[in-house]
Each structure stands twice: as structure tokens, then as C-alpha cells.
């Protein structure tokens, strides 16, 4: 008791202290008091009230947070979207259950926000039971239904009043005046006819229990996050004939795997990685067919057979139908598309992310992927750099060098804009035709960062590494105490001489970067070519003459033991 009054005093002090600053309350509590005089309505007898269809829609698609830089996978869209719907609602006086029908199936109910309602949201609900054959049966257990049975010979339909006794385990057991039977175990066409659908909704539905002192019409905005979306940037780089510059174009490919479409929506995509937490998965029963599992139905002539029934797949997992309905615009046709895309997305800053706005309203249809132009840049100078990355301890048989296109993302190079991560396909022109050279991934690239595009292996440039000699130098080595103060074992200093030969079968002189991976604590002590460091590792920057070769010799030192 004393504790309670003390707590009360603290409360008063606390509320006085911050009265101007904070408004913390239980909505229900406040409303409960305010409404007590006016209405006797309780949530239990709330009136159903359907919100109008959206008058305005906005869809912002975020990429799958942990997907690499590759393309989106239409089978498993791992990204999500923020959907905002503007709807008109007509509220009666009293408590009403305001229903928003046709929200995306992938709705994360916990993220839903409703703004614009009078200050009286009692609670928000997302019903997990959708109207489906199995949900109908489940809702009708213990209630009267009509059994329909068709005589296959005469076509005569028999209607029989009965009660569903159970729907457990996918089978339906019902009772009529004749006795207890199981649905569709007889081999006769049998079905139920129901008198109503109860409170099951056809589409994913969010409802808000709201209390209003008077009848009013409002425009409200419903925003929520929904899974089953994704987007990616798909770049096409086209090398010029001399290989010294490229054209860079990109598409934004966004996809909606939900069963709900968003007509004439303001559409945005957001680049950058946002943090997602795996919240509790909200339960949703997407329903399924009436399975009518029966008793064992083996016969004497057949080997035992186990009946396989289709399992109800979760929403969005229906790969086949997803694939059939997907509209994909071919991305590997840059030349033909370049002049079709007049409008590109508009980029703006969104905190530490980049937001790209599709200039015109567009329809994000259900189970569809669509493409919008991201950028088109031409005459971007690139340098071709050949290279090899070798571990110094091992000999390497002749192996092709890898080839990179390198440039810097700045205005001088006709770039200088944020480049969202995505797949890059590099093409080269051969007459009028385009040839694909290589595909690789690119991570989010800010302005002024170095852009490197992989071009794969260059078979004409071969690299061979050989360890020429190794010298163990115990005298130079420090002592390693095995047991302090007692025994000591000499560690050995190791000095190695390596030789790397680079041959060039091309008719042009090339730039070559040879990078080394040394053992821990190792260093290059001498070399016959200048050695530099890149990201903490030695690098030789070489020029290999046309149809010529270069051999690099270097000596390393490290300590073993």
C-alpha cells in the first residue's frame, strides 16, 4: 500500500515534469473515458465498415538486404516494399470495424500505420484466416450444412441436411440422419453447400477498430511494409571499338510477387542496405483445398500405395504460377532499347539511402516484373588493366591473367552519380551486332569511388610463377622460448627468391598489375622492378610490350616457427 502511494507520487511528479513535452497514453483508456457518456457501444458490437478502394497508391521497393549484387530471383523475391494507400472512409458514430480490403498478401501487419483517422484507434487487426475451401469447412464444424450428392447415372442431385463433425487432419467427417460418414470416401461425387461465409475475408484484410463521436467522412492513409518484392539495377556496359571508352546504361528491374496489383501507383525504389530484423512471423492461414483424406484405400490387386495430396503452399510460394505470369523484358538487348527509354528515374537523397522515383505513375501489377531506365552515360573513359594475384609460397603453372576495366565514378569521366549495386554485363560491338564479353557484380558505389568491371580471363596473357630458391637462416632467427627460462628452440628466418614470367600474345602493349600474397610478417626485400603497396600488399605495376614478355624477380623474407 505504501509502495503504491509512493509510486503515485512519483507519477505525479513525473507527469508534471514533462507535461509539455510528452503525450504518453493508452489510447483506449482516454477514449474509454471520453466515450463513456456518449455511447454505450463496445468493441464486441462494432459495426462493419468497408473503406473505399484506394484513390492514390505509392509503392517504394527495397532490395533484399543480404542478396549479393546479382539479379533478382523471381521465384524467391527476398526484398520488400513500403506501400501507402490513400482511401476515403465513411465512419458512423460509435464503434466501427473499419476494413481495408485488398492489402498485399505479404503485409507485415505489425508495421501498419493508419494516419488521418479521428484520434480514436482502439486496435488494429489483421485476420489470418482467408476465405478458402478448407477455412469454410473449419468454420462450419459443429454447424448445419447441406450435403450434395449427385447420382452419376441419373444425374439426380440429392440434398441432405447434416452437420460437419470434424475437419481434423485434412479429412471431413459429417453426420446426417442416416449416420456418420466421411466426405468423398465412397467414390461418389459429394460436396457441401454452406449457408454463409462467416467472418472470413476473401482478400488479406486489415481492420481498425475505431470510435468516433459523430458520423464523418475522412481521407486516411494506410502504410505498411510487405514482403514479396525486390529490385535490382542491371547495367550494360558497351565497349567502344578502340576499347578505351564505354557506354554505361542501366535498368531498374522491380518485381512484385504478391497476388495484389497496384494500379497507377507512384513508384520508387531505394538503394542502399537497410537493416531488417526478423520479427515474429505473423500467422497466416492462406487456406487450401478440401483434402478429404480417407481411410486406407489399398486394394488386393495393387501394391500398397500412399496417396499424395497437394499441400497448401504459403502465399507467394506458388512458383509455377508466378513464373507463368511474369513479364520479363529482355535486358541483354541494349542497342535496341537505348533510344526507347527517354525518361529515366529521378534520384534524390533519403537520409543515408538513395531514392529513385519513377517519373510517371505506373501500374505495379501482381506477379510482374517491370523495368525503368536508371541511367545512360556515354564516352566513359576506361583503362584496361591485366593482372594476377599470386601467393608467393606456391609455384603456379601458366595461367591466364584476369582483365579489368577501371574508371573512377566522377564527373570528369562522365559519371559522378551514385551507382546502386547490381549485375554488369559488358558487351563489345562487332559490326552492328553486340557480343557479350562478361557478366559480373558491382557493389553500391558512391561518387568518386573507383569502378572496376571484371572482364574475366585473358587467355593471351599468361602468368607463370616459380620459386627459384629458398635459404633457411637459423643464425639470424630469434629464440622462441618453449618453456619460459628453460628450453629454447631456434626459429628460422626464411629468404626466398621468386620469378614470375608474364607473356603477352596481343599485338598491343598492355598494363599489368602483379599482386603478391606473402606469409604473415613477410616483406619484399629486393626486386628487379619497382615495387609498391596496394591495400597492404606488394604490387608491381608493369608494362608488357606487344607480343613480348616480362620476367619479374623478387626476394622475400619472413620468419617461421
Amino acid at each position, binding site marked *: 500500500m505504501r509502495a503504491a502511494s509512493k509510486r503515485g507520487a512519483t507519477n505525479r511528479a513525473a507527469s508534471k515534469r514533462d507535461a509539455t513535452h510528452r503525450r504518453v497514453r493508452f489510447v483506449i483508456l482516454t477514449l474509454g473515458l471520453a466515450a463513456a457518456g456518449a455511447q454505450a457501444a463496445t468493441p464486441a458490437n462494432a459495426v462493419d465498415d468497408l473503406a473505399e478502394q484506394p484513390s492514390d497508391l505509392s509503392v517504394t521497393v527495397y532490395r533484399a538486404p543480404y542478396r549479393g549484387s546479382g539479379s533478382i530471383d523471381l521465384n524467391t523475391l527476398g526484398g520488400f516494399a513500403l506501400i501507402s494507400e490513400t482511401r476515403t472512409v465513411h465512419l458512423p458514430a460509435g464503434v466501427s470495424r473499419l476494413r481495408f480490403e485488398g492489402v498485399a498478401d505479404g503485409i507485415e501487419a505489425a508495421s501498419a500505420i493508419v494516419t488521418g483517422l479521428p484520434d480514436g484507434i482502439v486496435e488494429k487487426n489483421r485476420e489470418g484466416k482467408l476465405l478458402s475451401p478448407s477455412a469454410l469447412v473449419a468454420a462450419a464444424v459443429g454447424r448445419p450444412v447441406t450435403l450434395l450428392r449427385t447420382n*452419376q447415372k441419373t444425374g439426380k442431385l440429392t440434398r441432405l441436411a447434416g452437420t460437419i463433425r470434424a475437419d*481434423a487432419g485434412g479429412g471431413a467427417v459429417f453426420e446426417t440422419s442416416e449416420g456418420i460418414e466421411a466426405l468423398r470416401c465412397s467414390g461418389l461425387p459429394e460436396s457441401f453447400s454452406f449457408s454463409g461465409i462467416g467472418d472470413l475475408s476473401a482478400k488479406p484484410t486489415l481492420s481498425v477498430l475505431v470510435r468516433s463521436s459523430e458520423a464523418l467522412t475522412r481521407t486516411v492513409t494506410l502504410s505498411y511494409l510487405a514482403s514479396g518484392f525486390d529490385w535490382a539495377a542491371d547495367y550494360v556496359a558497351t565497349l567502344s571499338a578502340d576499347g578505351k571508352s564505354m557506354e554505361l546504361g542501366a535498368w531498374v528491374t522491380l518485381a512484385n510477387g504478391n497476388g495484389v496489383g497496384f494500379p497507377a501507383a507512384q513508384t520508387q525504389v531505394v538503394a*542502399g542496405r537497410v537493416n531488417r530484423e526478423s520479427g515474429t512471423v505473423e500467422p497466416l492461414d492462406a487456406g487450401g483445398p478440401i483434402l478429404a483424406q480417407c481411410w486406407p484405400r489399398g486394394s488386393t490387386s495393387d501394391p500398397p500405395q500412399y496417396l499424395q495430396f497437394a499441400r497448401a503452399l504459403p502465399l507467394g510460394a506458388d512458383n509455377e504460377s508466378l513464373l507463368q505470369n511474369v513479364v520479363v523484358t529482355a535486358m541483354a538487348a541494349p542497342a535496341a532499347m537505348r533510344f526507347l527509354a527517354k525518361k529515366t528515374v529521378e534520384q*534524390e537523397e533519403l*537520409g543515408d539511402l538513395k531514392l529513385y522515383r519513377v517519373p510517371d505513375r505506373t501500374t505495379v501489377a501482381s506477379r510482374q516484373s517491370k523495368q525503368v531506365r536508371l541511367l545512360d552515360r556515354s564516352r566513359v573513359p576506361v583503362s584496361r588493366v591485366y593482372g594476377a594475384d599470386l601467393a608467393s609460397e606456391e609455384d603456379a603453372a601458366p595461367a591466364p591473367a584476369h582483365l579489368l576495366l577501371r574508371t573512377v565514378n566522377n564527373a570528369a569521366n562522365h559519371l559522378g552519380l551514385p551507382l546502386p549495386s547490381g549485375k554488369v554485363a559488358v558487351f563489345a560491338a562487332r559490326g552492328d551486332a553486340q557480343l557479350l564479353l562478361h557478366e559480373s557484380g558491382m557493389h*553500391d558505389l558512391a561518387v568518386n569511388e573507383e569502378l572496376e568491371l571484371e572482364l574475366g580471363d585473358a587467355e593471351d596473357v599468361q602468368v607463370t610463377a616459380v620459386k627459384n630458391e629458398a635459404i633457411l637462416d637459423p643464425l639470424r632467427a630469434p629464440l622462441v622460448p618453449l618453456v619460459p627460462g628453460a628450453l629454447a628452440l631456434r626459429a628460422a628466418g626464411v629468404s626466398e627468391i621468386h620469378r614470375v614470367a608474364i607473356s603477352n600474345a596481343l599485338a598491343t602493349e598492355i598494363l599489368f598489375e602483379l599482386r603478391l600474397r606473402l606469409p604473415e610478417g613477410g616483406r619484399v626485400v629486393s626486386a628487379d622492378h619497382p615495387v609498391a603497396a596496394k591495400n597492404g600488399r606488394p604490387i608491381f605495376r608493369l608494362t608488357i610490350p606487344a607480343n613480348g614478355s616480362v620476367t619479374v624477380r623478387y626476394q622475400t623474407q619472413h620468419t617461421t616457427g
Partner: protein
Amino acid sequence: MAARLLVIGCMLCLLAGAPISAADRSLSVTIYAGDLALVQDRRDIEVKAGRQRIEFQDVSAQIRPETVSLTAADISIVEQNFDFDLLTPAKLMEKAVGQEVTIVRVNPATGAETREQAQVLATNGGVVLKIGQRIEVLRDDGLPVRVIFDKVPDNLRARPTLSVTVIGGHAGTRPATLSYLTPGLGWKADYVALYNEADSKVDVQGWVTLTNSSGVTYDNAQTLLVAGSPTQAEGGARQPAYYRVPQSRPTVQQAGTESGSRERLGDYYLYPLAERTTIANLQTKQVSFLDVHGVPAEHGYEFRNHWLGTAETPQSAKSIYAFSTSAHAGLGDQLPAGILRFYMRDKRGDPQFIGESRIDHTPMGSTLSLATGDAFDVKVRAVVDKRTRLNSTEWQSDMRYELTNALPRPVTVKLLQEGLWGDARISAESIKSTRRSAEVAEWAVMVPANGKASVTATFDTRY
């Protein structure tokens, strides 16, 4: 016999509708944060004198039967059973072994029906029947045969059912309370934070989110939410520690010391819902509990490098938002564990999602620092420039951190080098570090607008 009659009577009344109307039933549900709920079901029950069985069909399908207790005046409990043998066609046939059923053959040519009595001999793989003196396999020829059973066996039920055998002292109606623990009901908090970049303030709304996957609907229940998860012995629904995702970076920078105005039970905060509510099966329900505007917030950047972490390509720094839960210049409330979603307005003024972060139960007066995601334009490349072996036991590691900022304004990045273990000494550094702990060194690095900054440090370590 009396018990049998009661069961049948109860089943009949079930067929007609709910056995007990909502009016004389009072449910109260206490939901803990970790997928556990205490259900208390008060209702008037009809008790006869002597031994009898009382059935409760509308209990959670995930009930923990060992926690059930039924209290009422003048009854003593003999035993409690939780029956989960459910009525399916296969079970119905299985329980009919040895008993008579009616089979109805339908002539495919004429549609004429023939009725016969049959005894079910076995249901192994297929159904074997004895019709008169003949033995037949049901629907062996594939032709339609209906099977009609006389009754549903007593212990097969449409829904999992709790039954309690009691001895009543005197006959009559009396109030009874059935209480039990069940998983499948849980709650968490969900927060919506709208960050205003212009004045660095954040508006926060808090919602409690209830989820019910316990298989039953709780009608018109008085609901109490408890912020905290009581320890459960093994076998409970609580997730073992190794299933829980480890917290990668701490969200609470400074734990608070202020007391809130919320009701408490022991060390748990209580969130009672002011109105009775119906928690439908598979429903997600949200109720508001917090709405605060204009709380000062700080936006910063943080980059953590693990020991000897070296990168070929620059890595994005994390985008961090920090604010207080204090009554003074803060949210002024303790926050139950949940997920905080950040929004920010785009150029057109529409709120857009910019990332989310999980928070633990947070006392009032704490300072929260939450990462919303990676910063596109602020990056760090950490490089091990050189590792030198000084002698047989000591190493020197030269680290270089290159910070870049593509934003048109200067930013300060909190650069953290982890994995120092306590033994590592910083023998040289380009700017002064603070050692947050033996494990972590921290630099606050100013990176100019559209510019670069670099930090170098030399660490001396043994082994």
C-alpha cells in the same frame, strides 16, 4: 454411466452451438513477452453430486496440460486428461474395427442402391470387411461404396479437449475457474519513429502487437501484457539461447535509472488493455501505448573493424540514430522489447522507410543508439599495411583506415577497432584514440564534405 451421459449431453449441446454462452463466461489472458500466456477462464459450471467428467473444448490447442488447474467450490478433482486424438475418417474406420457398419453399394449402370451390414475386420493398408460369410476388401473394384457409421467413438474429438474428472459434493451450478499456461500467444512492441532531418527530432509511436497461433479464439477477454519473460524450466516454449540471434552491436549505450509511471509486478512492467478484446485465432492485433513528438535525436556514423580486418573495397559505415528515453528531452517511458522502424520524409513529403532495429527491454532514462542500415555515401577501407615480427613473441601491426564521404556536408564517423583483447598497445596513432574497453579502441574522425580522411595506428601485440 452418468459420466457417459454427461459427455453425450455435452456433445449435443456443442452441436447446437457453444456449450456456455459468452455472457456467463469471463476470460482473462495474461501474455508474457516470450510466447507464453496464462489463461484464466471463469464460468459457471453445472455439477452433479458424485463422480463425473467435465469437458472444456474451447481451450488452447497448445495447452500445457500439466499446468491446468480447475478450482470451484465443493468439488474434488480425480484426474485431468487432455485428449488430442482427433476425429478423422481414418481414425473413425480404425476405431470401427470389430464393429458393424452399413455399406451402401451404388450400381453404376442403374444408380440403384443396395444396403448391407458389414463388420470391419482390419484397416491395415486397406479396409477388410466381413459381409455375412464373405470377406471383401472395401472398394477393391473401384466402384462407389458408401460406409455409414452409427456413432462417433467417445474419445475422438473435432478439437483437442480438456476433460477433468471430479467428485461433486452437492449438485448445482457454481462458478469455477480454469487456468492454464499455453504457448502460441505472444506479444512484442512495434515502434514507428519518424525522423525529421531539418531539426534532428524524432516522433515515436509505440504499439503492442499480439499474435495468436494457439488454435483457439479468446472471446471478449480481459488482457494484460507483461513486459518480461519469466524463466521457464526445460521443455517450456522459451527458445534456447543458441537459437536467439546474438546481438551484434549493443543498442543501449547508457542504461537508465528513472522510474516510470507504469504498473509493475515484481520487476516486470504491466500493460493492461483498458477494454476487453477478442483475440481471434491467427490474428495479429495492435494497440497503441506510446505517442511522443519532437524528441531530440542524433544522427551519426559508426564503423567496426575486427582484428586485422582488411578490405579490398571500401565498406559502408553504419547509419546510427541515438536518442534518450529519459523524461527530460526523451521518450519519457520505459520501452518493452520490440522492433523500432525508422521513417524519413522524401522530397515530396511522403514518409519512406529507412531501416529498423531491434531493442531490448529498455529502462526509462536510457540512451539508445540504433543502427538503421549502411550509409551509401560514407565508407571506410581498413587495411593492414604491415605486420612486423619484432621478436619471437611480439608483433607490430600497422593499420590504416581510409574514410570517404560523398555527402555534401561534413560527417563524424565513430571508428572502432575491436579484438584488442586487452594486450594490444597502441604505440603510435595519427589522431588520439579513446580506449572504450580493453577490447575496443575508438576514434572520432571528422570527414569533410565530399572529402577523405585517414587514420593510421600501430598496434603492439604479443603472439
